[in-house]
């Protein structure tokens, strides 16, 4: 294992100190327990957005704290949900009296820990709602599993719900919009190589030199099938097929197309993927009116990418376009 780290036990703490040093204009960082809050929080009268989960997916979530997006992010250990304590602390730190929305990716650990935290915060008279993100169509038969996973679509929920909160929508509206984005978003990913969790020291799974994993999860959980390496266009078609069928997306739809890097993929490859995805959507009469390309929801150094498609309407487009000022997503200010 080769990593730019010191002690694996200090990875999350030291990275948080790096975030504080680099983005002290945007966020305040608390330690023991660790959580990151928007500078100047709480914003009185604004619904506060709190998200979190295991570390190793950076810039998710800490990179999305700031104006127009999250009020707080709670990073757990690498690939491990945070415990309720820091979630409660973050929730209290950002509550501005208008309630708090928890944005939770659908993993047993995240759901259980946020659930407990919400109970504890409610006991302290903070109104907490939760939206569970489950955009990953790779998980089939979700009735017989822990359900679909929350993956790259999380960023879109955080951005759009964040804009809703920023214009002072009430908790019910912000929750509705977050839920709507989740409901209209579908994602699927591919891994070319595994990632190495620092404390484990070994790859999360093994792939032969000519194998790829279709439907990979963001913690290196296996996906739908392991196949021989194919050209990028064929891989894109494999990812986009299940995405488009699932909602389903239809001719005439306007969408946001998001190609996300898993952390170790050269950006030039992400654009090759974007090109093919845009081409396929065009053939199907689906219009790409907004786009996002880059490493936003990563799996450490994993090579691979995911494709996310969000069906837009005027409400969501307006909120997507609204100003945002975070370390990893910024426009309009």
């Amino acid at each position, binding site marked *: 294992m080769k990593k730019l780290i010191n002690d694996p036990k200090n990875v999350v703490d030291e990275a948080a100190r790096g975030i504080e040093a680099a983005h002290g204009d945007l966020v305040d960082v608390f330690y023991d327990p660790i959580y990151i809050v928007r500078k100047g929080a709480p914003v009185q009268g604004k619904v506060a957005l709190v998200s979190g989960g295991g570390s190793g997916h950076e810039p998710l979530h800490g990179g999305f704290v700031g104006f127009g997006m999250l009020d707080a992010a709670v990073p757990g250990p690498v690939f491990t949900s945070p415990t309720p304590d820091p979630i409660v602390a973050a929730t209290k730190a950002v509550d501005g009296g208008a309630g708090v929305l928890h944005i939770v990716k659908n993993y047993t*650990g995240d759901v259980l820990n946020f659930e407990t935290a919400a109970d504890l915060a409610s006991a302290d008279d903070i109104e907490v709602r939760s939206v569970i993100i489950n955009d990953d169509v790779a998980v089939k*038969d979700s009735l017989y599993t822990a359900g679909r996973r929350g993956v790259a679509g999380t960023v879109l929920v955080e951005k759009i719900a964040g804009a809703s909160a920023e214009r002072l929508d009430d908790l019910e509206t912000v929750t509705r919009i977050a839920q709507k984005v989740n409901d209209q978003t579908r994602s699927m990913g591919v891994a070319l190589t595994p990632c190495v969790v620092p404390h484990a020291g070994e790859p999360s799974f093994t792939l032969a030199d000519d194998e790829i994993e279709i439907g990979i999860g963001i913690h290196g959980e296996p996906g739908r099938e392991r196949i021989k390496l194919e050209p990028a266009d064929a891989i894109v078609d494999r990812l986009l097929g299940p995405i488009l069928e699932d909602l389903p997306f239809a001719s005439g739809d306007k969408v946001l197309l998001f190609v996300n890097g898993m952390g170790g993929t050269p950006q030039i490859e992400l654009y090759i993927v974007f090109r093919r995805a845009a081409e396929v959507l065009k053939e199907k009469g689906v219009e790409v009116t907004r786009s996002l390309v880059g490493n936003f929801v990563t799996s450490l150094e994993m090579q691979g990418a995911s494709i996310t498609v969000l069906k837009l309407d005027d409400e969501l487009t307006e909120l997507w376009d609204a100003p945002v000022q975070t370390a990893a997503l910024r426009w309009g200010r």
Partner: protein
Amino acid sequence: MSLGIDWVTEWIRESARVIADHRVELITLDREIGDGDHGENLDRGFSAVIQKLGDLPEGALPGDALKLVATTLISTVGGASGPLVGTAYLKAAGAVGKAEQLDGAAVVALLTAARDGVVLRGKAEVGDKTMIDAWTPAVDAAAAALADGADEAGILAAAADAAEQGAKATEPLVARKGRASYLGERAIGHRDPGSQSSALILRAASDAAAG
């Protein structure tokens, strides 16, 4: 010869030891069908528990120690296993109440409440390839041993044996809960890490009673 606070604290210490000893094994199991952190998660939690154990006041009851384990695990483990195992100890503490000594029936009640706590939070059934596949056979074996007139040590030994068999029996299963459920057929042939750690913890309970 019922069990008191000394048994509980020895159980806790022995659990911390075996989890530390099997940390890498649990990580490896979790890497195969999960995300490779289970051993790390529990080791972090039980290390914290050992740190806190000194805070227990003189004359603490079994229930106090179990509650300390519960709250410490909940606030240090994270992941799926933190709330699940934490809730197990929380419900176990509730079941023993203010008792100073636990007889066989109390031990069975403790184990049953712990298992029920995991089910309450995680909603898994036997056969879902989760820690429940260790806990439920253990509870059943404990109840049977009690009915057969075994003493506390015998009850706990029966529970530990059954938990170990239950963990082993997860190998051929497809998972329906937790991360391993994403693998479908590919989970077959791998032991569920949570069932394995549960078996270790239940063996620690038995060893603490025997030792």
